[in-house]
């Protein structure tokens, strides 16, 4: 009996380890039973500062802070894309035959974080937007500071977002300034650290370089901030470098995120010779 249970468990585990197109009805029901309470707790926590400000007669100041925070977030988001456009225009000036007319833009769906991973082995968050609000599996999730992760599974009114710090996550990345290195960002299960692998030994990557998504995948748009290089070392084989990255997003203070609901990967066409 015990062996049968172990065998069935291992088989189910194996089948649910790979990317599933959808979670089961039971999983959706279980997750949705938590959503109202989690949303309530999240709302109380988010408004806690506001309540204490009311009691200490600082409501005006609190309002100003909130407005400035919202403005700051907006500006950070704009700055992030402007940085990318700056680099792009610099490159385009140097490339006469470059055509990027098909550059995409994407729609953002704001969402609140209502819960975090209940255990230490997975790095994920739950947001208050689900299937009903148009969220689908594998949609990228960002914040004004940078890349957060991707939607792992969706229930009716919530979605679980696997953070880029999760051990199973991998994101194609490049150095924003030089555009030279197509590395892969790996999660380490630590919210304060990422690792960039597959960096060629001749790369000029150095401490302080800003890393952004490369856009070489169907999930993450290019140019989204990922982090800053804090350390570069050589892998034991000597052929590749590995870099430690500090994420630009403070995952411990994450409250609001944006789900990219419509993204089509960039297709770069070279001009046909006439």
């Amino acid at each position, binding site marked *: 009996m015990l062996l049968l*249970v*172990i065998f*069935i*468990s*291992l088989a*189910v*585990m*194996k089948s*649910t*380890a790979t990317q599933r197109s959808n*979670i089961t009805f*039971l*999983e959706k029901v*279980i*997750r949705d*039973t*938590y959503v109202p*309470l*989690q949303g309530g*707790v*999240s709302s109380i*926590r988010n408004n806690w500062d506001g309540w204490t400000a009311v009691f200490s007669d600082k409501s005006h100041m609190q309002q100003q802070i909130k407005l400035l925070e919202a403005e700051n977030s907006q500006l950070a988001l704009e700055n992030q894309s402007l940085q990318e456009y700056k680099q792009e225009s610099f490159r385009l000036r140097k490339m006469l035959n470059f055509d990027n007319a098909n550059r995409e833009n994407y729609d953002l769906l704001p969402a609140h974080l*209502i*819960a*975090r*991973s*209940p*255990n*230490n*082995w*997975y790095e*994920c968050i*739950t947001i208050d937007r689900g299937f009903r609000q148009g969220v689908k599996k594998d949609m990228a999730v960002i914040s004004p500071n940078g890349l957060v992760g991707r939607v*792992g*599974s969706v229930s009716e009114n919530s979605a*679980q977002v696997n953070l880029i710090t999760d*051990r*199973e996550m991998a994101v194609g990345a490049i150095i924003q300034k030089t555009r030279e290195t197509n590395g892969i960002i790996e999660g*380490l*299960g*630590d*919210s*304060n650290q990422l690792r960039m692998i597959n960096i060629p030994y001749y790369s000029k990557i150095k401490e302080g370089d800003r890393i952004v998504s490369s856009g070489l995948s169907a999930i993450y748009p290019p140019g989204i901030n990922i982090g800053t290089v804090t350390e570069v070392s050589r892998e034991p084989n000597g052929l590749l470098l590995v870099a430690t990255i500090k994420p630009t997003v403070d995952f*411990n203070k994450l409250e609001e995120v944006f789900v990219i609901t419509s993204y089509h990967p960039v297709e770069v066409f070279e001009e046909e010779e006439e």
Partner: protein
Amino acid sequence: MRILVLILLPWLSIFLQSTVFSSYTIKGTTPDLVLVFVTFFALFNTAEKGSGYAFLCGLLEDLYMGRFIGLNALSKGLTAYIVGRVQGNVFKENMFVGVLGVIVATVLNSLFLFLISIVVFDVFHIDTGMLHHILYQALYNVIVAIPLYVWYYNSSNSGVLKTQWRV
């Protein structure tokens, strides 16, 4: 009533872990309340009942997470089985037993998680970060286990968790 409380405990544990405790971590580590209650249940019942209850609690956690379904169920089930095997030889009146049980269960559970993950998926690599997680989780589990053990012990003897014997 006992059954209802036993169902509610893991449900509430997951809720608290994902909302309250995830905001108050120790070095990025949250306590495993489900494991704490599972350990207590195994200490106050038999190994078979303990492992069965732990399996179902772990399964609830797995279904909530929607990934690697069966991983927590199996690791917690095996942990509770071992805890349940030694429960007959210890004095449960002593709070130290509960605390020690939780420490042992935290280490065992992590060990089973590693072993299953390595054997089945080959995804986890043991690093110092993970060992820190285990140490801090054991510490956090003990902190929450002390008041919870008092409540659990009293409830098991004269409260809602007392087994109703039928003649």
